[in-house]
């Protein structure tokens, strides 16, 4: 009836228009490249249950519009996000230059503790590259971001991007750096979480693990 998971993380996908945010999400959820993609209007939604370090985590992912006119609407979805994929297009310096703004938004509006991974998308278009790997990784270093170059077309590093972000959050929970109980942490315990230590022996139901969104 419903999927079992240990945690639920709220994720954001942010970045300038045309960077390929929706395609990344589509690739992650459907394992397919989204042909003829339109501009996202407002915010779209997707979710998937993944396995990270022995835990099942449901990722509730909000894919935001990159266009400036939607900025105020998309910002209203930031609150309570645990992780974010900050996406730019390696063939467009413009999208790279806007990163600082997106980063500020995320850290101020979501949570200072938000775990962000920088994704240089369209890795497959290396010939038209305008932003080098080195340059971007330096930016990531300076801003304490994880960094990957991805391709929504081939699927390269897409899964890794989401998983890496989730893994980091799990580590922070384990180390006590993040408290899932705190309001607005963007983390919820799932129905299979460890909190139910007092439950009698062997009571977990085995339900199929699949996304039913």
């Amino acid at each position: 009836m419903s999927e079992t998971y240990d945690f639920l993380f709220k994720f954001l996908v942010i970045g300038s228009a045309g960077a390929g945010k929706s395609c990344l999400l589509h690739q992650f959820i459907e394992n397919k490249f989204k042909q003829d993609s339109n501009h996202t209007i407002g915010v779209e939604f997707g979710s998937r249950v993944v396995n990270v370090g022995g835990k099942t985590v449901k990722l509730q992912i909000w894919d935001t519009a990159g266009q400036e006119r939607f900025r105020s609407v998309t910002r209203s979805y930031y609150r309570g996000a645990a992780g974010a994929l900050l996406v730019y297009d390696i063939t467009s310096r413009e999208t790279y230059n806007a990163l600082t703004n997106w980063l500020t938004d995320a850290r101020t509006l979501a949570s200072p503790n938000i775990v962000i991974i920088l994704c240089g998308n369209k890795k497959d278009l290396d010939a038209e590259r305008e932003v080098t790997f080195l340059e971007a990784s330096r930016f990531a270093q300076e801003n304490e971001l994880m960094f990957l170059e991805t391709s929504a077309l081939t699927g390269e590093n897409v899964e890794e991007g989401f998983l890496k972000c989730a893994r980091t959050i799990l580590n922070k929970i384990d180390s006590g750096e993040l408290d899932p109980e705190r309001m607005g942490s963007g983390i919820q315990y799932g129905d299979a979480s460890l909190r139910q230590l007092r439950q009698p022996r062997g009571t977990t139901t085995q339900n199929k693990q699949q996304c039913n969104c």
Partner: protein
Amino acid sequence: MMERAMEQLNVQLSRLTRSLRRARTVELPEDNETAVYTLMPMVMADQHRSVSELLLNSKFDVNYAFGRVKRSLLHIAANCGSVECLVLLLKRGANPNYQDISGCTPLHLAARNGQKKCMGKLLEYNADVNICNNEGLTAIHWLAVNGRTELLHDLVQHVSNVDVEDAMGQTALHVACQNGHKTTVLCLLDSGADINRPNVSGATPLYFACSHGQRDTAQILLSRGAKYLADKNGITPLDLCVQGGYGETCEILIQHHARLFQMLIQMTQNEDVKENMLRQVLEHVSQQSDSHYQKVLTSLAEVATTNGHKLLSLSSSYEAQMKSLLRIVRIFCHVFRLGPSSPNNGNDMGYNGNKTPRSQVFKPLELLWHSLDEWLMLISTELERSTKNPSLSSSSSEIASLLLKQRESDPSRTTLSLLEGEAYVDGEDVISMTANRLSAVIQAFYMSCSCQMPQGMTSPRFIEFVCKHDEVLKCFVTRNPKIIFNHFHFLLECPELMSRFMHIIKNQPFKDRCEWFYEHLLAGQPDSDMVHRPVNESDILLIHRDSIFRSSCEMVSKSTNEKLKQGIAVRFHGEEGMGQGVVREWFDILSNEIINPDYALFTQSADGTTFQPNSNSSVNPDHLNYFQFAGQILGLALYHRQLVNIYFTRSFYKHILGIPVNYQDVSSIDPEYAKNLQWILDNDISDLGLELTFSVETDVFGAMEEVPLKPGGSSILVTQDNKAEYVQLVTELRMTRAIQPQINAFLQGFHTFIPPSLIQLFDEYELELLLSGMPEMDVEDWCRNTEYTSGYDTEDPVIQWFWKVVRSLTQEERVLLLQFVTGSSRVPHGGFAFLMGGSGLQKFTIAAVPYTSNLLPTSSTCINMLKLPEYPTQEILRDRLLVALHCGSYGYTMA
């Protein structure tokens, strides 16, 4: 020889005596079948002496099986608890394990009927407790079904397997759990029954307990470590509890498996779950303690917010997400309104005790309201942009093609304009794509705001919200008026907001407004499409035909409004009949009585067919009570969609609707005076020396009295500048002030069934249709009684077309046409020949008007004249006529 004969005779004689003394045979018949029926009643009554005596010298087979189900006498004894007979039969070698046609042994029957002693004896004689009947049931199943714990206790000692399954794989524990026999369950568990045993469909004892809401049994099972297992179809014990609305059992489940709490909350998103049952369960859980209350509501608020955000994602299913969001918020509001369980803060809306404010639970929802706000602001910006660039937004396809052309011709320059243009193009799209979704969230927002307010009050926050986004909301409903009916229910509850949208609502088809009207009028009534339903004898309105008005008044005042809303049952004194037909008849003749001149409540208007309150009704001392009653009857009729046989004046319908009257309405009571008022308005009165002041002289019981129209009116002169005000005031005096108490009393009655906010969805013409129904229209009669002027005659092709078109119109459209031309939707009694005009009989008239392109038909209602342009074809005539009917049948303009 003699002696033997004597002896035989003696034996026979003593037998006869014995038989006679005992009132039964003393000798068993030889054949088993007859013998067994002789014995059976004795066994049933446990007459063991007789049985023993009869059996003594007979060759009767004690195991003889008889009857349809092939039972032996031992079965009968066990079944009836005839313990002495049972022992007797056993002693005589009856087989304790003999099975009847359904496989039941005597032990089964004894167990089923709780025959403790019989069971004991059967066991003594080595009855086998493990025998199954044809359905696989054993004695312990029977004991468990009926909760005979004590007997079970004795029996289980002998049972080799307490988990013996019937044909459905059910054990004794299953059936005990299903029936909630606590001690039986404990006994079985103590005897080693498998607590998690699934039956053939995978249902465990806990599953059975939950399926019937056996709270205590579930508690026992869980505390003994029962696993929480779904059946083979994936249906869980929690699902079952929610299905049945078993809050207490749910609570027990959650106590033992905390994770089920989230599952329960998540179920609000599942449209297959019955909302009222789930709500019942959540209510119960929330009532456990303050912290439960907080937790339920906060979790619901979180789920609602996620759902709301999903709804605002354009790729989600609007229908499903909208329903889901509204369902969750509905449940949320309901639970919130209940308040926490602790009694000391029952009437405190703000704080619970000393800890967290109750409003805390709304916090997760704030995220959603914030997003809603941002969305509406975004749309407002888009709207502004498109109004600044009307050329761009007027037709998006045009721009797109234009841009494409530009792009081909001048690829270097257009990139910028293309980007801008695109924004506008899908700016239009954004509104059409999001309007429905945003409106549904607005509906949810209203619900959430309202549940924090006392009933019947609109939250200031929501009013502020509507004012802030006024423009966007109006844009939504103008583009898609269905939104009003689907999501803007708040309008019906907030008159202050309704007025903003009234003009848009009034433009919606009558049918849609009717549906909305009844949907809200009847909301909360269980089965709304029945006027008549089975009722208590005491709720029947018993009416005397010879005093219909008085007895109806009496009966209605005795009943309660709530009962009358649920349904009306009428019976005429001394008659059998009841049902829809009688109710209809009652409304029909009662409405005729209401306007009976003997009561002096209503007077006929100038045209003789419509009525309005009689300003002199006070000759009847009880008149105001009667007006209230009349209002009640009209309201009740409307409530139950019954038609009445009264037509009121236009001005009285306006009074019901709370619409101000105008001078033209005066014509219904005083057509000459109305003409004079018209004349004043039409002509410049500056130099006429009328010397009129803002006062009139009226006749009050024979004495002329000066009545000022406004304070100090007798010294204010009527001038060209203020004549409109004069006409309005004098109209109100004639039409309203004279009958104000009567109107008020009538409305007081009417509003007990029909809230003013709902009735204002209609105008006076529609109200007439609602109350009195669509008139029958005989087109042939109409045609026969029509006159033609200014060039038309019956043979004229335009006239021929006209009647062809009229015949093709729907009933509703014909009514509109009649209204358009005569100002009334009614055909007078006797047909069109009796159509009245401003001064006497005035037939329906069609006048020719020279045709110019796009010219619409017009009318002069006071002379029942349709001014029909000389259209070149029938199609154009039809088209123009329909346009005029649908847009122009209400409201007057001076032609």
